[in-house]
């Protein structure tokens, strides 16, 4: 680390990073706040309004006639519009949807059938009638009030309580972990061969790997499932197994893995490899004892992505593991929670944050392998 990095430029750096981070997290922040909001609020007001007290026009339905009490010969229904909220201030009210702000707090409104409605600024109201009221549905009271921010974790509770979520979580892990580790191993060997071993056709192979990056996943599904079914029938085992999905994830992840790892490995100083070779190490030794430890940054970055993709994947899991209840992965389970029309945003927002946790943990724990100066001190002159 170079001494005295304390220059005015540093502030520019800090500020620009803050700006970028803000830009990048703002959308997600919206999601986070939304996930903590009441589900009916989501579609009505912007998430940022949830952060401060806002003036809203709302409707309250008073209790029905069965809640009336007789007092001094009058029939009274009373309550509070701002039920359950400690603060808030009513600034206007009404009883007709056409004129929702016809009255000021404290005023008394004459309802059509001899009933009178009074609403106070603190939200308490009273409907008074001379004769007994009827009907199961209570009176609608329109009011405008300053409502303080209101947050709830109900959305999370709802998602977490969903049946089978624990099993799905384990399913997801069972899919994701080997689907991450196996391709890394396989790809690392291949990348080493492509970067440091001499054999004819190497350049072509590299190009093929790049070319295979582009193969659309959807193209492969049917032929592969056909193959799986064939093999499954031949061996007399079910076609949709964990091994099957691991291999599938490996196949789809390999091109990128090989491509990234090869690029990284090709950049390692060759003197180190030579030195090991002179020390009597075979290719296998070199790979295991020199290349792998020195490639940790690349391995870690790929692991982060592969884990992420397999964790968030729905399509491959649905096709190769099946859609059945006991084989459902977490994403599948959460998507199913959304219901047939897929519109429950409050669940969507909450489940998005529940699924994000594991990948973020993986990212955070693997990030420390992206170290600086891994090669420092190894060779002189470059």
């Amino acid at each position, binding site marked *: 680390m170079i001494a005295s990095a304390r220059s005015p430029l540093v502030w520019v750096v800090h500020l620009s990073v803050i700006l970028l981070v803000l830009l990048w997290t703002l959308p997600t922040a919206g999601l986070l706040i939304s996930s903590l909001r009441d589900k009916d609020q989501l579609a009505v007001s912007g998430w940022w309004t949830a952060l401060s007290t806002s003036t809203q026009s709302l409707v309250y339905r008073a209790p029905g006639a069965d809640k009336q009490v007789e007092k001094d010969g009058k029939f009274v229904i009373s309550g509070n519009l701002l039920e359950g909220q400690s603060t808030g201030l009513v600034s206007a009210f009404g009883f007709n949807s056409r004129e929702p702000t016809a009255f000021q707090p404290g005023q008394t409104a004459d309802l059509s059938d001899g009933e009178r409605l009074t609403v106070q600024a603190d939200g308490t109201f009273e409907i008074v009638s001379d004769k007994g009221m009827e009907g199961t549905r209570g009176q609608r009271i329109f009011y405008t009030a300053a409502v303080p921010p209101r947050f709830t974790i109900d959305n999370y509770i709802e998602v977490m309580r969903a049946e089978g979520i624990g099993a799905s979580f384990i399913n997801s892990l069972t899919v994701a972990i080997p689907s991450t580790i196996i391709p890394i191993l396989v790809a690392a060997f291949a990348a080493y061969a492509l970067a440091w071993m001499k054999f004819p056709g190497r350049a072509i192979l590299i190009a093929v790997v790049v070319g295979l990056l582009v193969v659309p996943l959807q193209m492969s599904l049917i032929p592969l499932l056909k193959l799986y079914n064939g093999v499954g029938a031949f061996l007399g085992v079910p076609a949709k197994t964990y091994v099957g999905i691991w291999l599938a994830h490996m196949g789809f992840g390999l091109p990128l893995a090989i491509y990234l790892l090869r690029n990284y490995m090709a950049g390692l100083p060759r003197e180190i490899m030579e030195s090991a070779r002179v020390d009597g190490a075979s290719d296998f030794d070199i790979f295991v004892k020199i290349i792998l430890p020195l490639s940790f940054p690349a391995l870690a970055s790929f692991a982060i992505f592969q884990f992420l993709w397999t964790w968030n994947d729905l399509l491959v899991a649905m096709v190769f593991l099946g859609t059945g209840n006991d084989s459902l992965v977490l994403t599948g389970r959460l998507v199913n929670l959304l219901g047939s029309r897929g519109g429950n945003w409050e669940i969507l927002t909450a489940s998005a944050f529940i699924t994000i946790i594991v990948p973020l943990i993986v990212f955070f724990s693997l990030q420390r392998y992206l*170290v600086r100066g891994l090669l420092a001190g190894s060779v002189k002159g470059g």
Partner: protein
Amino acid sequence: MQQLLFAITTMAAGVLACVAYFYGTNWILDRIFPSKGLTGKVASRNLRITNTIRPWLFLGPAMVSLTIYLIYPVIESVWLSFHDKSGQTFVGISNFKWMINDGEFRQSIYNNFLWLLVVPAAATFFGLIIAALTDRIWWGNIAKTLIFMPMAISFVGASVIWKFIYDFRPEGSEQIGLLNALVVAFGGSPEAWMTLPFWNNFFLMVILIWIQTGFAMVILSAALRGIPEETIEAAVIDGANGLQIFFKIMIPQIWGTIAVVWTTITILVLKVFDIVLAMTNGQWQSQVLANLMFDWMFRGGGDFGRGAAIAVVIMVLVIPIMIWNIRNAAKEMEGR
């Protein structure tokens, strides 16, 4: 609990099998063709043989897997692209003929080129900037995690997120989309962003850039940290300022990785469809190739011939990138 146990054992078995393969085959190879301790013709012959075989042992599992999971489907796709809807009857190049005349296809190609121009460049650019800037500040890891977050968010989540950005409410009513809220706050009138032909492409691209920057950042950050510190020190001594060091010392040294990131994102862009599917499904002239392919493949029973033909086009588009990569690899292999 039992499932957990099963999961752990299968995981261990899978990984172990993989290790055993590599170790075992190498061991066997050295057993069959020994060269240690031997001299003369036999030794050199064995040596030659092992040297020829060993790379293929290392490559073996990868190649098998690639062949099954990717090459075989590619061949199948090519085959299908010359067949009709149900994949039964050979129809020659009529699928391709149809494609050229299809307005939606042309629209998709046009849009895809827009995407290719903007997204890889922008994502790589932001990824690089962020990787470089966060590298030397104490809260860099936190910043990176935050910027990485979009990558980790499931796609369903992301589409909701952007709904809360792009959402349009008629003028006069309260906006729940951030972008329109800002526009209104500054006195403009709200726009239905997704429905603006041509421009909506860019709003969709923003989403992909937002996601892929995390990818570029992680890879480039690893590369930046691999730059020998001493070359930076030397540049500092030579009087270079931060920007000069960044552009003249760091970037050239990680150029290979930048190319890799750019390539990867470019290819990803060719494949992108879920964003388009979820946000517009190609309406308002925002169609892209991959979504078009998906459309033909699966919607209402599907037309595999045409779907495959579009897939073939996508794969053909990547050929220039392949050639460029061969060149790069060859250059870097010189004298190795």
